[in-house]
C-alpha cells in the first residue's frame, strides 16, 4: 500500500493556498514595520500595495499554470471544483484586482487612509472570492461568502472619522448578516431534504424532476411526453450535467468494496470484467473524436450506426434488476483515464446521450415506465456499448445493484422501491431562500436598497472594489447552484430570477436619473446591469450562460475604466478634498485633460451600449439570447429601459464637454503607468468590437465545460 501524502492532482486550490500564506506574510511585514517605534511609524501603503499586486500576479501565474487536464475535476472531498469556469473567473478577477490596486494607490494616499491593513483586507476579500468561484459545496460557499462579506463590512466602515462611512459599514453589516442568515436557512433546509450539501449530489438527486410538476415522480406524465422531456433535457444540459460522474463512483463504491466484490466473482465473471476493462479502443477513438470539441457532430454516422444496432436489443429490456453500473463505470473510467485523459468529460456525456436517443426511439416499449427503468435502459445501452452481447454483461451488472441503493438511504429507497411521489415544495422554498440571499449580495432590485447608501457612504476605493470585482464570483455561485445543481427546478426558480431582473433594470434606470452624485449614479447603473445579467441567467440555455459571462467581463472592464478615471481625477484645490464627487466636479474635463475626457466618454458609451464599442455587442447578444428562449416581454422591457438609462450616461458626457460654465476644475497629473493601463482598458472596447471572437470563444468554452 502506497501512502500518498500529497497528491498533486488533488491540489486544486494551490493558488488559493499560496495566496492565503502570502496574506499572512504581508501582515507580518506590515505589523513589524508599521507599528514599530524605531522606524517612527512609517506609512507603507505604496509598498504594501505593490506587494499585493506582485502576489496577485503570481497567483495569476499559478492559475494559468494549473493543468486542468491533470487536476482532478473535484478535490477536497468534492468541495472544490477545478473546472474551466472557476479557472476563467478566478483569472479575470485577479487581473481586475491588479488593475484596481494599481489605480487606487494615489487615491488611498490622498484620502489619508493610512492603515496598511486596508489593502490587505482587500486581499482577504479576494481570497474569499477565489474560493467562492471554485466552491462545489454549500459549506465552502457559505464560508467563502462570509470571508468576503466580513472583509466588505470592514472596508465599508474604514474611514472611522466619517459618519457616512460608519453608517455604510453598519448598514452593510446588518443586511449582509441577514442575507447570510437566509442563505444558511436555505442550505439547512436543503441538507434536511437531501442529506447532502454537495452540488453534484443535488444534480444526481433532483435531475429527474420534470418541469411544472411539484413531485419528482415520473408516473404522472404520459409516456411519450416524459421521454421527450428527458431526452431534451439531456441534450440541453449535456456535458455540464454529466461531467461529474467520477464522483458517483467514488462515493458509491469504495476501493475496498470494489476489491471485495471482485474477489467474490467467479472466474467467468472475472474474465468478463477484464474484457470490459480492456475494451477501450472504441473509447479512445471517441475520445479523440470529441477532443476536437465538435459537439455539433453528435449525429454522425458513428452514432447512428450504434443507435441502430441498439434498437435490435430493445425487447430484452425486461431483464430485471440492472442498475446504473457504477462499478462498470469505475473500471472503465480507470481504463479510459490511462488512455485518453482529456476525453473524460466527453465520454460520460456520450454514454448518456446515446441512452437518451435510444429511449426516444423506443418509447413504445412497455417496460420504460419509471426512472428505475430508465436507468436500466441506460445500463443496458452502456453495457451493450462495450460488449455487444447483452445478457452476458447483465450478470455482472446485477451483482452490483444492491450497492447502488444503499440500505440506509431512505429517500432513494422510497424513490425507487415505492414509486411514491416526493414532494419538492419545501425544496423550492429552500431554493428561493438561497436565491434571495444571493440577490441581496448582488443588489438585485427588491433587495437593492442598501447598495446606493453603502456605495455612497464607504470610501471611494472601497466602492470601486464593491462595484467591479465581486459580482462575477456571486454569479459563478449562482450558476453552480442553479444550473449545475438544480437545473431540474428551472421552472420554479426562473420566475423569481425574471422578476428580479426586470425590476432591477427598471429601478436602475429610473432611479439613476435622479442622482447628482457620481457614485450613487454608478451604483444605480450597476443595479441595472445586474438586471441585464439576470435576464440572460434566466434563459436556461448555453447561450444564456455564454452571454452572461461575456457581459460580466465587459461590465468589469468598463467598470474598471470608469472608476479608474473617477479615482484618478483628484481635484487640486484644497478645500474640496471630499471623498464624494458631484457630477459637477468633472465639469469641462475636456479642457483640462482632453484624452481623459475622451476615454471616459467612450467607456460610458460602451456601458450605455452604443455601437462602435463592445458594450453594444454584448448587450445585443443578451437581448438576443432572451428572445431566442422566447422571453419576449423581458427582452422588450429591458431594451426600452436601456434606452432610458442611456440618458444619464449621456448627461455625464454633456457635463464633460458642453457645460455652460467658463472655468473647469484643475486636477493633479496622472502617473504614466496608470495612464497606460487606462488606455489599455480603453483600447479593449474597440479591440473586442472588431475582434470579439477571442472573448466569445473563451466564454463559450467556459459555458460548455463547467
Amino acid at each position: 500500500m502506497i501512502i500518498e501524502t500529497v497528491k498533486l492532482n488533488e491540489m486544486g486550490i494551490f493558488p488559493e493556498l499560496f495566496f492565503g500564506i502570502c496574506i499572512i506574510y504581508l501582515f507580518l511585514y506590515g505589523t513589524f514595520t508599521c507599528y514599530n517605534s524605531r522606524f517612527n511609524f512609517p506609512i507603507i501603503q505604496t509598498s504594501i500595495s505593490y506587494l499585493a499586486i506582485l502576489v496577485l500576479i503570481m497567483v495569476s501565474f499559478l492559475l494559468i499554470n494549473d493543468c486542468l487536464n491533470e487536476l482532478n475535476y473535484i478535490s477536497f472531498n468534492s468541495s472544490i471544483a477545478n473546472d474551466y469556469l472557476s479557472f476563467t473567473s478566478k483569472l479575470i478577477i485577479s487581473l481586475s484586482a491588479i488593475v484596481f490596486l494599481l489605480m487606487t494607490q494615489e487615491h488611498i494616499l490622498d484620502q489619508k487612509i493610512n492603515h496598511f491593513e486596508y489593502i490587505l483586507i482587500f486581499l482577504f476579500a479576494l481570497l474569499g472570492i477565489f474560493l467562492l468561484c471554485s466552491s462545489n459545496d454549500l459549506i465552502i460557499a457559505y464560508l467563502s461568502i462570509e470571508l468576503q462579506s466580513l472583509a466588505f463590512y470592514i472596508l465599508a466602515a474604514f474611514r472611522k472619522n466619517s459618519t457616512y462611512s460608519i453608517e455604510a459599514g453598519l448598514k452593510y453589516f446588518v443586511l449582509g448578516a441577514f442575507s447570510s442568515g437566509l442563505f444558511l436557512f436555505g442550505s439547512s433546509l436543503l441538507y434536511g431534504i437531501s442529506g447532502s450539501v454537495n452540488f453534484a449530489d443535488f444534480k444526481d438527486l433532483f435531475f429527474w424532476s420534470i418541469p411544472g410538476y411539484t413531485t419528482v415522480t415520473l408516473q404522472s406524465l404520459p409516456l411519450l411526453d416524459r421521454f421527450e422531456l428527458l431526452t431534451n433535457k439531456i441534450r440541453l444540459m449535456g456535458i455540464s450535467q454529466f461531467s461529474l460522474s467520477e464522483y458517483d463512483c467514488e462515493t458509491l463504491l469504495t476501493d475496498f468494496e470494489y476489491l471485495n466484490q471482485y474477489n467474490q466473482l467467479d472466474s467467468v465473471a472475472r474474465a468478463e470484467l477484464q474484457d470490459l476493462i480492456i475494451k477501450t479502443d472504441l473509447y479512445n477513438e471517441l475520445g479523440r473524436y470529441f477532443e476536437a470539441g465538435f459537439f455539433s457532430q453528435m449525429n454522425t454516422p458513428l452514432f447512428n450506426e450504434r443507435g441502430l444496432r441498439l434498437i435490435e436489443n430493445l425487447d430484452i429490456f425486461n431483464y430485471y434488476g440492472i442498475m446504473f453500473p457504477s462499478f462498470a463505470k469505475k473500471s472503465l473510467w480507470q481504463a479510459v483515464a490511462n488512455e485518453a485523459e482529456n476525453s473524460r468529460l466527453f465520454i460520460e456525456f456520450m454514454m448518456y446521450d446515446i441512452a437518451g436517443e435510444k429511449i426516444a426511439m423506443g418509447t413504445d416499449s412497455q417496460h420504460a415506465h419509471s426512472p428505475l427503468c430508465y436507468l436500466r435502459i441506460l445500463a443496458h445501452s452502456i453495457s451493450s456499448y462495450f460488449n455487444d452481447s447483452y445478457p452476458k454483461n447483465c450478470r455482472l451488472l446485477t451483482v452490483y445493484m444492491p450497492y447502488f441503493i444503499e440500505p440506509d438511504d431512505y429517500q432513494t429507497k422510497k424513490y425507487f422501491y415505492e414509486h411514491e411521489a416526493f414532494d419538492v415544495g419545501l425544496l423550492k422554498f429552500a431554493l428561493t431562500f438561497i436565491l434571495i440571499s444571493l440577490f441581496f449580495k448582488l443588489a438585485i432590485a427588491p433587495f437593492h436598497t442598501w447598495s446606493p447608501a453603502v456605495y455612497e457612504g464607504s470610501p471611494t476605493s472601497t466602492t470601486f472594489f464593491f462595484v467591479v470585482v465581486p459580482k462575477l464570483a456571486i454569479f459563478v455561485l449562482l450558476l453552480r447552484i442553479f444550473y449545475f445543481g438544480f437545473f431540474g427546478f428551472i421552472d420554479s426558480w426562473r420566475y423569481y430570477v425574471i422578476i428580479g431582473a426586470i425590476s432591477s433594470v427598471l429601478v436602475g434606470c429610473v432611479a439613476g436619473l435622479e442622482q447628482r452624485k457620481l457614485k450613487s449614479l454608478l451604483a444605480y447603473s450597476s443595479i441595472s446591469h445586474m438586471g441585464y445579467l439576470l435576464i440572460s441567467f434566466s434563459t436556461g440555455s448555453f447561450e444564456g450562460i455564454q452571454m452572461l459571462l461575456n457581459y460580466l467581463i465587459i461590465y468589469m472592464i468598463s467598470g474598471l475604466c470608469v472608476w479608474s478615471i473617477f479615482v484618478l481625477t483628484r481635484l487640486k484645490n484644497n478645500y474640496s478634498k471630499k471623498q464624494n464627487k458631484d457630477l459637477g466636479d468633472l465639469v469641462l474635463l475636456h479642457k483640462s485633460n482632453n484624452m481623459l475626457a475622451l476615454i471616459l466618454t467612450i467607456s460610458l458609451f460602451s456601458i450605455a451600449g452604443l455601437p462602435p464599442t463592445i458594450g453594444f455587442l454584448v448587450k445585443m447578444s443578451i437581448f438576443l439570447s432572451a428572445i431566442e428562449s422566447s422571453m419576449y416581454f423581458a427582452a422588450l422591457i429591458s431594451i426600452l429601459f436601456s434606452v432610458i438609462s442611456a440618458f444619464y450616461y449621456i448627461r455625464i458626457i454633456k457635463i464633460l464637454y458642453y457645460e455652460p460654465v467658463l472655468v473647469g476644475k484643475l486636477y493633479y497629473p496622472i502617473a504614466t503607468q496608470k495612464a497606460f493601463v487606462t488606455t489599455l482598458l480603453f483600447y479593449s472596447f474597440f479591440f473586442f468590437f472588431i475582434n470579439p471572437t477571442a472573448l466569445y470563444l473563451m466564454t463559450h468554452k467556459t459555458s460548455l465545460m463547467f
Partner: protein
Amino acid sequence: MSGVQIPFSLYQNMIINILFYFFSNILLFSALMVVIVQNSIYSVLFLVCSFISAASLLFILECEFIALLFIIIYVGAIAVLFLFVVMMLDIKTINLTKNTIKYFPFGSFISIIFLFEILAIILKNFKSNPYQEKFLVNFYYNWYEKLDGLTEIEAVGQVLYTHYVLQFLVAGFILFLAVVGSIVLTITPPSKKSKSQIIYRQISRNQDSV
C-alpha cells in the same frame, strides 16, 4: 468470608449516579435562583452556573461535543455578553416581592399547563421503538456495524482535520480577519501630536466632564 466483592462497574454506576444527582440539583437550584434573585448581575452569574452544570450533565451522558459547545458558546460568549450589558446598563434593583406574590397564581397556572404539555410529549415520543409504524421498521439494520468506540470529539476531530480541512482553514481565515478588522476599526493610530495646553478648556471643565 468478607462478603461479596462489588464489581468495578457498580462503583462506576454509583459514582455516576451521585454526580448526576449533584449536578442536576445544582442546575435546578441555579435555574431557580436566576429568576428569584434581585440583583441582575447575580442572576447572570447563576445563569452561567446553570449552563456549566447542564454541560456537566451532558458530559455524564457522554455527549462531550455538545457539552463543550455549551461551555464555549453559552458561557463563553452569550452569558459574558449578558454580563457586560447588565453591567453597562446599570439597572437599579427594585423590590419585586410584592409583584411575585401578585402574579403567583397566574404563573403557576401557566407552568402547570407547560408541565402537562411536556409530559404529553414525553409520553408520546419516548416509545421503545419509534419506527414501529414507520416505513423503516421492516429493514434490517446491523447495529453492530453502526457502533463504534469513538468518542464524539474524536469523531469530529477525525473528520475535521481530514475531510473538512479546507473548511477548517477557511474558518481560521475568517476568524483572523475578524480579529484584524475589529482591531483596525478600534485602534487609534500612534500619533505624534505634541502635548499642548489649552487654557480655556482647562478652565471650563468641571467635575462631571473630566
